[in-house]
Structures are given as structure tokens and as C-alpha cells.
């Protein structure tokens, strides 16, 4: 049978960077094909070429055996290619329906086609068991639902080849599962799927074949059934990945953070956090598990001073955290000076200033600590410190003057973590530290966090990845609906039980 897609010797460079070098492989019709590789390996670039964003410097793309010139996304769409981007391509202030219709409106007057489109959309939702309200506005929807809208768009356009670039990075286990159900339905209909992910378990679970890329080249193409996670990881990184990182025995010290009756209501009076109580000790990692959107983000924001609670308090080293009355403006600095470091969940929004250089981002939040003579920045010292940091945390490329926006997500994350670690905090708040990060980097980040713990720092970790929770936590708190629904030590780790707690089954 003809392969659905064939890449023949694709090359692409950006300036001096060779993003793709002589990439060739085929994707069989009706298959789910995995694409894996480190951050910056060239996966997204290759897919962008397939979707018409970039033109390859050399090589051909064949669809159903025919060489095709794909010069724009419009042409790709016409050829039946659909792409779900890692950063959602949705217009925030429009409804689901309008987003789906955009580009395939059907005619000049929307009114005459809207009803039709809505009916079709509802029919699709029913058929694929996608629970989405066509008339909801995007910014009111959770990421998981937004993801579904992206899928809906592709089904609506009856794409035959579906590219998914790290679709599961922001999804919970359940959401991932339901996404995979849909993909399987797709496959049954004979559609072809290319799936990029950093989670090898997902590759094992769902793909038929998998291609591994490294530094712009294809380094392996195998049938999933004939390989293993370890082998894939080895191919990707060029060395085996350690699953069980060494850690000191659990011996928590004195309490660092005591949260007492913390509450948060939004300005319409809806309760976001309710009666949160817990204690965090020196030298332990407490992980908060839960479906995202259940109050974890808000909790982290409050504890880092970015947001004010409506009631309750938190003691840091025995003294209450100085929450202000009305306005959290400036409060994060006060908390940071107390010794609370924070790796924010949304690194691009909160954690870095994209248009600052890497170097300037290495002291975001600590800008008042690096004054030299005259109270001005001592750039020589900063540069030295930065060079050391880039080396120690293996940031690639180790160029301090690059705009950080040009770094891959994983490397941006390394910079943020390095910055917060080097501040020598007493308490570290870490939100989703490895979202969208490749396995090699995950290993590095986990190693850093464990070293911090072993050095006696208290760490509060929020993660939707149970794998990550299992790998790092000493104790697990589960949150649901703004409440803590359960607590268990790591040796009682039990996916089913945690899943139940995450679903709201109360403390047992």
C-alpha cells in the first residue's frame, strides 16, 4: 500500500542552525506514527514544513505517492492535512463554533451557515463523545477542553492526516486517555496520525510505528511493538536514562511552612480554595496531585505572594506570611526575600521575559540583589555567574546574550530552575517543572530538585504527571475542587486511589 506521507531527504536550516538534515521516513496510511526526540531535535520544524509554514531547503514531501509542493497552511488544509499545535491556535474571545468555522465558513453571510455548522458540530461531538459546548467562549474553557476544540476543528474539516505536536503536554491522565480514544476512532476510519510527544509511555500505548530524531537527523525508525521505552530513550539521548534517581533517606526537619485554613474566593464569590491546611518540613518534597484547575495554581500563587487569600494564614518558619490587605503588588519580592523561591507553572507568562536575554532572565526577581558599585548592575560579575549557571545546568545553547524566547521550552525551564535553585531558598514552590520537556532534561531537572531536597530545602511540587509525583515526592496531597481530598505517603502510592481522590471522593 502507498504510504500516506513520505519525507524524502528533507533539509532545513535557520541561519547557522540545521534544524533538519536529510530527513527521510514514511508514515503508513491509517497508522498512528510517533515522532520523538530531544528538545530542539527538529520535530516541530519538520511538521511545520509538512503543514506549509516553512519551505524545505531541499527534499520532497510525497502524499499518497505524489510529490506535493505545500506552500502555505491553506494548501496543507486543502490537501487534507490538519495540525494541532502545541500552543493552541484558538481565538480566545470567540466561541467554539466561530473558531471551528474560521477558515471554512461556507459563505459570506455567517448567519446562513452558522446553524448548519452548529448542527454538524454537535453531531461530531456526539459521535466522538467529545463534551464541548459549541457556544462557549474559548477563554472560559480549561486547557483540556481547548485541546478538544482543536481536535474538533480537524474533524470538522475532515482532515485525513492529523499532526499533533505535543498534545498531551498540558493534559491530565484522564484527558490524555480520552484523547487517545478519539485517536483510535480516527484510526479506525483510516486516517493517518503523526504524534509528537516526550512521554514515551504514550508512544508505547498508542503508536504503531515510531521515528526518533536527534539533532535534526533521523536516528531510528522502528515498529512500536518491537521496541521498548528504554531503547527509545537510549536512541533519543544517546545514553540510557536513569529511572530511579538516587535520594537520601526521608528524614524531614522542622516545619517550614504551615498553611492554616487558607481560603480564596474570586470576585463573583465562587470559592476557589477552601480550608487548606497542611505542613511542609525541611528536606521533604510534598507533591500536590490533581486535575489541573482544581486550585493548585491558585495555592502556589498565594504562597509565592502573587495573589492574596481571602481568609486564612500561612506560617513560614514560625512567622505568619505578611499578606497585604488589598493589592499583591510587590509582595512576591517580600516573600522571595524571606527565602521562598518559585518556579511558576506558566513559564512563558510568569517565569521569563521573552524579550530579555538569557542572562537578564537569570536574575528576574533577584534584580535588587546584584547591585555593585553606585547601586548599578555589575555586568562582569553577572556574566561570570551566568556562564557558570549555563554550564552547571546544561542550558543549550550556552549563549547568555540570546533572547530567551529563542530557547526551546526545556532550556527556558532549565534557566528558571537554575535561577531559583541558585537563590538558596528555604522553601521552593515548583509548578509543572517538566511540561513539554524532553526526557533527558527531565532527568536533569529531577536531579536538581532532589539535590535541593537532600540539602534540606522544603519543596512543594504541583504536577499533573503522576509519574513525576511518584519520582519526586515524599508525601502526596491530592486536591479537588479547591480542597485537599487526601494525603498519602509515597510508599502507599496507588494510582487508583489517587485517581479517586482527584475525582473528588473525600478523605477516607
Amino acid at each position, binding site marked *: 500500500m502507498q504510504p500516506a506521507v513520505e519525507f524524502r531527504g528533507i533539509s532545513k536550516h535557520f541561519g547557522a542552525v540545521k534544524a533538519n538534515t536529510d530527513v527521510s521516513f514514511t508514515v503508513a496510511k491509517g497508522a498512528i506514527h510517533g515522532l520523538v526526540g530531544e528538545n530542539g531535535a527538529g520535530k516541530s520544524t519538520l511538521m*511545520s514544513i509538512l503543514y506549509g*509554514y516553512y519551505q524545505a531547503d531541499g527534499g520532497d514531501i510525497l502524499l499518497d505517492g505524489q510529490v506535493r509542493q505545500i506552500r502555505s*497552511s*491553506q494548501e496543507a488544509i486543502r490537501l487534507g492535512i490538519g495540525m494541532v499545535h502545541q500552543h493552541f*491556535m484558538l*481565538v*480566545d474571545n470567540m466561541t467554539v463554533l466561530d473558531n471551528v468555522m474560521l477558515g*471554512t*465558513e461556507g459563505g*459570506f453571510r455567517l448567519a446562513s451557515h452558522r446553524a448548519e455548522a452548529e448542527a454538524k458540530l454537535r453531531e461530531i461531538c456526539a459521535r466522538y463523545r467529545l463534551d464541548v459546548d459549541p457556544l462557549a467562549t474559548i477563554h472560559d474553557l480549561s486547557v483540556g477542553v481547548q485541546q478538544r476544540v482543536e481536535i474538533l476543528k480537524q474533524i470538522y474539516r475532515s482532515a485525513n492526516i492529523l499532526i499533533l505536536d505535543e498534545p498531551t503536554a498540558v493534559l491530565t491522565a484522564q484527558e490524555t486517555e480520552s484523547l487517545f480514544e478519539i485517536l483510535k476512532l480516527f484510526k479506525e476510519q483510516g486516517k493517518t496520525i503523526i504524534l509528537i510527544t516526550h512521554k514515551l509511555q504514550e508512544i508505547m500505548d498508542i503508536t504503531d510505528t515510531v521515528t526518533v530524531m536527534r539533532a535534526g537527523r533521523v536516528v531510528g525508525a522502528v515498529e512500536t511493538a518491537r521496541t521498548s521505552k528504554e531503547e527509545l530513550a537510549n536512541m533519543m539521548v544517546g545514553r540510557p536514562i536513569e529511572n530511579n534517581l538516587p535520594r537520601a533517606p526521608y528524614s524531614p526537619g522542622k516545619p517550614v511552612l504551615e498553611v492554616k485554613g487558607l481560603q480564596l474566593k474570586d470576585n463573583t464569590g465562587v470559592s476557589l480554595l477552601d480550608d487548606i491546611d497542611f505542613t511542609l518540613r525541611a528536606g521533604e518534597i510534598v507533591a500536590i496531585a490533581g486535575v489541573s484547575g482544581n486550585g493548585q495554581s491558585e495555592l502556589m500563587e498565594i504562597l509565592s505572594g502573587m495573589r492574596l487569600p481571602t481568609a486564612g494564614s500561612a506560617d513560614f518558619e514560625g512567622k505568619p506570611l505578611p499578606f497585604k490587605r488589598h493589592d499583591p503588588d510587590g509582595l512576591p519580592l517580600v516573600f522571595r526575600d524571606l527565602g521562598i523561591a518559585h518556579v511558576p507553572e506558566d513559564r512563558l507568562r510568569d517565569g521569563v521575559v521573552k524579550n530579555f536575554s538569557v542572562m537578564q532572565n537569570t536574575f528576574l526577581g533577584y534584580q535588587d540583589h546584584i547591585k555593585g558599585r553606585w547601586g548599578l548592575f555589575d555586568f562582569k560579575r553577572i556574566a561570570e555567574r551566568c556562564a557558570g549557571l549555563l554550564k552547571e545546568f546544561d542550558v543549550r545553547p550556552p549563549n547568555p546574550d540570546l533572547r530567551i524566547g529563542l530557547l526551546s521550552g526545556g532550556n527556558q525551564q532549565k534557566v528558571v530552575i537554575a535561577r531559583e535553585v541558585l537563590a538558596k531558598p528555604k522553601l521552593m514552590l515548583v509548578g509543572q517543572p517538566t511540561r513539554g520537556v524532553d526526557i533527558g532534561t527531565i532527568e536533569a531537572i529531577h536531579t536538581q530538585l532532589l539535590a535541593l531536597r537532600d540539602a534540606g530545602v522544603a519543596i512543594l511540587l504541583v504536577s499533573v504527571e503522576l509519574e513525576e509525583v511518584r519520582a519526586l515526592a515524599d508525601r502526596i496531597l491530592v486536591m479537588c475542587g479547591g480542597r485537599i481530598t487526601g494525603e498519602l505517603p509515597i510508599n502507599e502510592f496507588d494510582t487508583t486511589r489517587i485517581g479517586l481522590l482527584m475525582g473528588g471522593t473525600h478523605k477516607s
Partner: protein
Amino acid sequence: MTFEDLHLGSIVVSTVRNAPVLLFAAMAGLFAERSGVIDIGLEGKILASAFVSAAVAFTTQNPWYGILAGIAVSVVIALLQGAIAITQKGNQLVAGIAINIAMSGLTFVVAQYFFQQGGRTPDLGEARLGEVVLPGSAAVADVPVLGWIWTQLLGGHTVLVYAAFALVPLVHWVLYHTRFGLRLRACGENPHAADAAGVSVERTRYLAMLIAGVLCSFSGAYLAIVQSGFFLRDMSAGAGYLALTAMVFGNWRPFYTFLGCLMFGFFGAVQIQLEGVDLPVVGRIPGALIQMVPYVVTVIVLAGLMAKSVAPKAIGVPFVKSR
């Protein structure tokens, strides 16, 4: 003169008559900015079209040729702005300001060169647009209230006034109920999403600029051919900036923008009537201070009522394809 002498009717009519200059320009700005292109160059386009339409109307003695020529020039400028913003990916604010400054100088230079009247065109005389007399005006003219409504409020304007008011629902319809409007809004909010959905961001934005050029030209034509009957240097006198203000004030939505324009017109008219009037309590306010009224009111309304205006998210950012 006393407070009771304020002529409400006259204020309303004056508001209606003054609105088109701002209205056309504000609607033009709306198209440009909802597509993601900042249009601070409204002023320059108004001025250029005012000059060209007056010059051509005078030369041909036909206002319609004037209007057509005004459209052509305004469109050329808008497309130049588009080329800078969309193709060149240059700074849109700079482009707009440059156009305003260049047009302020060029219109004078050219007008002076051709007409030798100090940057003024000769009087248009008969080459102005006539006022529409509604049927039956003569019959109802003397009926109280109704006569006023029929002959002064509704009738007695040029077609451009009706066009300006009809434009508001039309723009609303285009923006929210057509394919083009949907794409336009998407390009202004998240061009990457539009692009990924197969919409050509460039084409949409160029089209928006084209429409902006056409609409803006009416503002200039109204100023020159209807209101004044000639072109005079810098005669736009800040109308472009006020239109922009009305648009920001109206949160980039047609109807609220319309209200913003009317607000300027209304308080402008009130201010005219207040000058030299003995007000209760405060007495007679000096003219210069009375002139502040529309501006002070705008600030108060902005601060008090309509806090937080939300611009289209992608406004002013050149669209560069990448994921």
C-alpha cells in the same frame, strides 16, 4: 443670556451634523485595528483626502469626482501603511505618525503650488454636495416638533451624513455577521490561529486597510466638500486623533465607538452654547475653560465608567509565521 436659553434642539442637530467627520474616521480605524494594524495615521489620510477631494471637485466642478479622487488618495496611503505594517513588518506607530506629519506638509506645499492661495483651495461654490430635502418638508415645516424633526433633524443634511449613520450598523454587521468580519477579528486577536485555520492574514489585513482607506476618505471629503467648501491647511485639526480616541473609548466596538463620536459631537455643541452663558452657581465660565468640556468629560467617563479598555490582542505586532 441665561441658562434657559440653551437650545437643546440645536445641540442635537449640531451633534448629528458634526458626527460624520469622526464617525467615518473612527469606523476606518476600527477596521484597521480590529485586523491588528494600528492606525494612528487617520489624521494624515483625512487631510490628504480633504485636499484632493476639494482640489478635484473644484477643478471639475463636480463633488463626486472630488470624492472619488479623495478615495483614491486615501486608499493609496492606507495601502502604503499596510505595506509597511504587513509586508515590511515595520513599526506601525511610526508609520502612522510619519504619514500625519508628511501629509500636513505636503498638502500645503501642493495646494500652494497649484492654487497660490496660501495652501487653500478656491471656494468650491456650486461644486459642494447639496442637502437632501425630505419629501413633504414644505408641508410639515411649520408643524411644531414634527416640523423640526422632519426638516432639521432628519432632513437638511447631505447624503454623507446619512451614509455615516448608516455605516454603524453596517460595520457591526460586517464585523460580527460575515465571513470577512470573522476572519478580520481573528487576525486582530490571534493571527497565528487565523493562519493555522487557513486564513491569509496578509490578505485580510490588506483588505482591512483598503476599507479603512475608503472610509477615512469620506471623513476628509465631508470636511472639505460639505462642511467648509474648500481646503485649508491642517483643516483636520486633530479629528483623526479624536476619532482614534472615540474608538479606544468604544473598546473597538462599532456601537460604542459611535457613542464615543456622538459624545464628542454633543459636548462640542454644548460647549458652543455654554460660552458666555450665565450658569447657575458657577456664573459665567471663561471661554477657554469651557472649551475643555468635551475633553474633561472624556477623561471622567474613561476613568469612571469604562475602566479597562481591551485592545485587540495582536494589535501593532507584525505577523511573523512561526509556531
